[in-house]
Each structure stands twice: as C-alpha cells, then as structure tokens.
C-alpha cells in the first residue's frame, strides 16, 4: 500500500513539474482577480481592508475550483486511471497521493503567496498569520472535497458548471470558517477556535474524502 502511494505520488509530481505552465494558472488567476476587486469597488484602503479577508478566501476558493480538472481528467481520458483503479493496491492511498500532489501545486503556493495579495488589499496586520494558516489547511480541504466532485463528474467531461455546483455546498463550511477566522483575528479575538474547527474538518476530509472519491472513480469506469 505504501508502494502504490509512492509510485502515484512520484509520477503525478513529475507530471506536474513537467507541465509547469499549468501549475501557474491558479496562482495567476488569484492575482488577476485580486486586481479586479479594487478596480470594481474602490481604491480606498479602509474599505478594502474591511472586505479583504472574505475576498482573499473567495478568490482562493475559485482558484482551487478551477484547478480541479487537472486532478483526474487527463488520466481518465487516456485510460491510465482505469489501470490504476484495477490495481490490487487500496485505491484510497493512490487517490490520496493524487490529491496531495494537487494541493502541493495549487493550494500550497496560493497560501504562501496570499500575504502579498493581502498587502495589496490592505489586510490589517493581525490578519496575516490567520490568513496563511487558514488557507494552508483550507486549501487542503478544498483539494480533498474537490476530488470528490471531480470524480463524480468524470464520465461527463467538462460540461459547463456542473462541477462548481456540486462542489460549492461542500466548500461553504470551509469558506465560512476560513474567512471568518481571519476576520476574528483582525478584530482581536482568538483564532484558536475557528482554526481548530478547520483542523477537524481537515481531519474528517482526510479520512472520508479519498474513500468516497475512490468509490466514485470505481463507478466512473463501470458506466
């Protein structure tokens, strides 16, 4: 079971690194929309700092959503996924490997670059630690839950907005706790509570999401 994990992990990481262009997409998207916000609203610092936590989190969420296609679609299209599924190793670990690689190349960069964007949106100082911590854990949850949605819609191809529709209700609790933890930090409250909640959501997702995803993948090759 470890070998299955490592093989998939190494392979996916290699593929991701080779397609460096694809890697940049979610991050570029993140930057671009953050620029759109002041243009659409106001350049005033004070107003921006009020909405910064929410905007940052929503945009990170959208960027994450955009990147979900890369998780399974390519492997599904060329038949590799089917080969992976029928292997005797537990599918849970191989799915987990894929998701971890996905997070390493989307969620992690997003979380680490968020402070720069926070500065551009006049995020108050107290918000930065909470921003990075909540995003680090939150984007991991988004990758895990997004995988469930991606697996469920796999045989359908890229049909419009079905994936966002399915994944949004799953994302909402994460968004609520993530964005509001930053806001609480700014307002001077302790963020231990909300961050702990995000942590428990992460733990729950780590256990359940790859399992459900594996089930959905099995359904997808049955047809």
């Amino acid at each position: 079971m470890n070998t299955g994990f490592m093989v998939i992990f190494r392979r996916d990481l290699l593929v991701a690194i080779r397609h460096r262009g694809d890697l940049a997409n979610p991050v570029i998207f993140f930057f671009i929309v953050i620029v759109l916000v002041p243009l659409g609203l106001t350049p005033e610092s004070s107003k921006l700092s009020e909405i910064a936590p929410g905007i940052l989190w929503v945009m990170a969420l959208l960027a994450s959503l955009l990147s979900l296609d890369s998780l399974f679609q390519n492997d599904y299209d060329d038949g590799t996924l089917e080969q992976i599924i029928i292997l005797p190793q537990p599918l849970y670990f191989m799915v987990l490997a894929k998701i971890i690689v996905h997070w390493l190349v989307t969620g992690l960069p997003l979380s680490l670059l968020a402070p720069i964007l926070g500065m551009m949106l006049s995020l108050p100082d107290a918000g930065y630690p909470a921003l990075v911590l909540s995003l680090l854990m939150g984007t991991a949850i988004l990758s895990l839950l997004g995988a469930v949605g991606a697996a469920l819609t796999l045989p359908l191809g890229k049909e419009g907005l079905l994936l966002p529709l399915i994944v949004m209700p799953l994302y909402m609790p994460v968004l609520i706790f993530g964005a509001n933890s930053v806001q609480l930090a700014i307002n001077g409250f302790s963020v231990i509570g909300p961050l702990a909640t995000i942590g428990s959501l992460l733990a729950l997702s780590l256990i359940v999401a790859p399992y459900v995803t594996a089930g959905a993948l099995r359904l997808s090759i049955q047809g």
Partner: protein
Amino acid sequence: MWQWFHRLASPRWFYQASGKFLPWISMLGLFFISLGLVWGLGFAPQDAKQGNSFRIIYIHVPSSFLALVGYYIMAVAGAIAIIWKIKLADMVMKAAAPIGAAFTFVALLTGAIWGKPTWGTYWIWDARITSMLILFFLYLGVIILQSSYEHKGLSSKAAALLALVGTVNIPIIYKSVDWWYTLHQPATIRFTEAPSMHPDMFQPLLVMIVGFYFLYAIALVASIRVEILHRERRTKWVQDLVFTNKNNDP
C-alpha cells in the same frame, strides 16, 4: 423471507399496489389541505405583530419540513440503490429529487414574500434562509448530475453517492452557517417561529403539515409509477396494461 423482500422491490408489484392506494391518499391529502387552507386563511387569529401576513406560515413551514425530509428520503433511496442494487430504489431517488427541489423552492419563495412585510426586505441572509438556499443547490446538483448521466446513457449511481455526501454535509452546513450568522448579527432579528405559538395558530399548522406530507407522497408515488412504466415499457406486463386497459389514472 427474501422472496417477500424481492417482491417488495419489484417495480411491477409497486405499480399494481400503488394503483390501489393512490386514490385513497389523494382523497386524504385533499381533505387535509383543504381543511388546513380554510382554517389557516380564514379562521386562525392573526399575529399581534405581523398581522395577516403571518398566514403565509401555513405554507412556508410545511414546505420547509418536506424540503428537508424529502432530501433524506432521496438520499436513503439512493443508498439502497447502490448498496443493494435495487432498481426501484433508484427510481424513488430519481422521482424524489425534483419534488424535493420544488418544495425547497416554495419554502424560499414564501419565505421571501413573508419577509417583505415583516422585515422590509425580500431577502435576508439569516442562518435558516441561507441554509435553505444551500439545500436548494444540493438538490439541483443531484438533479443535474442525474440527468447528465442519463443523457449519456450511463447509470446514475454517482447521483446517489452525491446525495449521500449531501446528507453528511447538511448538518455541517447548518452548524457553520449558524455560527457565521451569530458572528455577524447580534441577535436582533429573530426568526418569527417562537416556540410558544398559540394553539389556535398551531393547530391549523399541524393540519397543513400533515396535508403536505400527503402531497409529497402523492407526487412521489405518481412520479414513480410513470418512471416504472417508462423503464419497463418493453415488458409483457406493461404491454398488456397498455393494450387492454382503458383507464388512465396516475
């Protein structure tokens, strides 16, 4: 014993059995709804603060109940379909999805219309309404996933799985939305469902809730029957039914 269980799961058995009791539940449903409507609209006292717009509660609350219950019915049917691979359960899930969505829509619509005279606005981002909106999206997801798979000629087990994921999600969503709302709104606006409702107002509500359960059952059974006819259209029993029967009641 398994024979009985499998007979229960036979679409043909369901079609024939439901044909017998559908007229009865239709009459009962009609009775309760009529009673509730007349009572609630004309005979229940108006609310001290809200006046007569309060009467919208007699549609809003029952439809909210059924919206939520309907989701669990859909999810349980889906679970039975994928675990035991019972076709009838799959049909129940498929039928329950749009019906539940319709009840959710009615709950949202009546809530919005009720909100205007009560709070001055059609929409308000409080915990309950926001959760109901998310429930509507959960339904939509299942419906669209279902029909996309069907469109491609594939089995819609994925929709059942999605429905199950949703059931785990619903309490989490409600808790988080509740937390979010208390964070941002000091509890000045409390939803008007005070636990102590005068019996004169509560009794017609009970009648309407019962009536709505019947409404749901009628819509569900009728829809399942149609789905059965469609899926089993090539079987002998359906062919016999079509070519020897004259009555067309659902």
